[in-house]
């Protein structure tokens, strides 16, 4: 899917998500333009992960509209026809999970090839070539034939990034990609993410607490608080010139 620069890859309109009585998202409106890196931060339970999961329908939005790469879907009950639409939408949104969720029964290269081969029907040898290129990009080409259990957490997460990239998504959704990692392994994952943003100009939505990364890479930041976007702006605006007391308190706590 080719979109002209400046056009929104992700559009979220009036998004609500409730789990029973609990209202996790309360009317989110946002757009992410092509090539943009948006960092979403906030306390746990503020709804930031839920937003990402609603965008590729791992959670069904209670109300609202999601649009990814021109595929526009309403929230609410999941119907038979919608299921296929959701599947098509997911082809454009790659997801990286906090717990990596690599397939343990497949080797690293087979993890990366799984999507292109099974979902897109690519021939295996072709998928292997691109898969190896991607593994090279995340610095793990020599681990191609190893099972994930033999990799460190940081290596597993880099494979997970390569697996998502293999589907050639228009936007990458990162759901706390470094939160499950030991401190000394965080850097290698952030480096890969940085080069994704800087070198490949990948459109990215990143839920993270890594404020150093945010300051360096983000075009825009959003502070989530109790299910709404409380404040939004460039890193510079939020880090140095925020006037919102909640944002200020949070940033002081993390930095």
């Amino acid at each position, binding site marked *: 899917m080719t979109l002209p620069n400046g056009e929104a890859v992700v559009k979220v309109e009036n998004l609500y998500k409730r789990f029973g009585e609990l209202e996790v998202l309360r009317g989110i409106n946002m757009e992410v333009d092509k090539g943009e890196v948006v960092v979403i931060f906030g306390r746990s339970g503020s709804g930031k992960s839920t937003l990402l999961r609603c965008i590729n329908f*791992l959670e069904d939005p209670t109300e609202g509209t999601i649009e990814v790469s021109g595929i526009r879907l309403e929230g609410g009950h999941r119907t038979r026809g919608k299921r296929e639409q959701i599947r098509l939408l997911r082809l454009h949104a790659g997801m990286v999970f906090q717990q990596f*969720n690599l*397939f*343990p*029964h497949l080797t690293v290269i087979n993890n990366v090839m*799984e999507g292109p081969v099974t*979902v897109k029907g690519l021939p295996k040898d072709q998928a292997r070539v691109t898969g190896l290129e991607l593994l090279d990009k995340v610095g793990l080409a020599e681990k191609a034939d190893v099972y994930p*259990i033999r990799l*460190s957490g940081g290596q597993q997460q880099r494979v997970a990034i390569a697996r998502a990239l293999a589907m050639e998504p228009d936007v990458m959704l990162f759901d706390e990609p470094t939160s499950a990692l030991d401190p000394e392994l965080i850097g290698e994952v952030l480096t890969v993410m940085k080069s994704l943003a800087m070198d490949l100009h990948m459109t990215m939505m990143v839920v993270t607490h890594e404020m150093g990364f945010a300051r360096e890479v983000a075009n825009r930041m959003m502070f989530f608080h109790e299910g709404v976007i409380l404040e939004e702006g460039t890193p510079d605006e939020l880090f140095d010139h925020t006037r919102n007391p909640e944002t200020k308190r949070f940033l002081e706590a993390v930095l």
Partner: protein
Amino acid sequence: MFQLVAAWLLLTQGALALIFLPILSLTPDFDVPVGDIGTFGALAVACMIAGGLLYTKLRWSVWIAVIVSLATAGWLVSDKGLTSWAEAYIGVGFVVLEVAFLLLGRHAAGKPEAMALSSAHVPFRLKLTLVWIGIFFVLALFLSQIGLDWRWMGDNFSIIAKGAIYTLALAVGAIVIAVVLALLGALGRLSKNPVAFGISGFYTSFFRGTPLIVQLFLIYVALPQIGASLGSRALLNVLALSAFQAGIIGLGLNYGAYITEIFRAGIQSVGHGQAEAADALGMSYAQRMRRVVLPQATRVIIPPTGNDFIAMMKDTALVAFLGVVLEQADLFRRAQLIGNQDLKRLESLIIAAGMYWALTAIFTFFQMKLERRMSAGYVRGEAQTATGRKRTQFLPAGPPGAVQPGVAEPDIELDLRGGNVPGHEHGGGTPR
């Protein structure tokens, strides 16, 4: 080490003799006077005491052991000893071994630490083998004493053993049906579709809630009645199954219900994150099941399903009650028919039992192999088994360039945190 073997031999000999004693004295055509049997028992106890002493108590226990051994041997070969020369030879053979080992390893007598040390050097497998040999030895002695008609057993072995083909055919046919039903049943149990959920619920409830033998008779005897009462000749012909066919279908339906629960649990054991990862790649439900969930569930499913298969192999004997003809009869049915005909029930049933046992032993062995292979991608390096034995190198099957355990790999963590499934690699357990 030698001392240890001698102690074992003495203990085994004493124990065997004590087991042997009541059998001997109860054999009707055995006319040894009571006094001699008493001597025999006393010598057996003496052997065990000597063996025990060797382990711990006295420095000169070695000489006690030698004297006890020689006395036992002397008594056995004397005309007051055992009835048959063959048995006396076995006893004397034991004694020769004992004395040889005692003399070779005299220095360890009465030193518990030395004994324990030498015991630690003997591999567990070797000890286990010795135990099994001992058990079979006793079993053989027992069988030799109960007056079996070995000639008859030799003559009729092949015709009974041929039943193993039909036993296997029943079991394999039924397991194929059962696995297909179980997969459908499990997907139904996990489905949000009320029809699928309801049908699979009814299926597991009914077939787990009624006895297998009743189900077999329902299918064989009662099913044709449906055709008859509907007055449909064609339906009657379809429903009137042979006992063999009814057996396969009945076993398949019954075990399918049990294995449904195994499959359901196996599928549920695959972490939710796996399904989400598959979904996020844009997989359909079928793709997600086939490529991600089922391959991982299989690992969990195989051990209990293998157990059920082995259990079922034995339950095929129930099909005999449907009255299968001899040409298609399984092991048990053949043993019954032939044994009753010649009034050799014990002999024929021993053959059948041995065959069942052999079959299950073979399949248990293959199941273990399979489980080991399936653990690729789940075990990192050296794995410890339940018995505390070390099992080396649990490498992922196949791909070259896989990292060898033990080779320095600075960026490999040593904990298992990254794994999605705990390193469970020995779930076989014993078959029912």
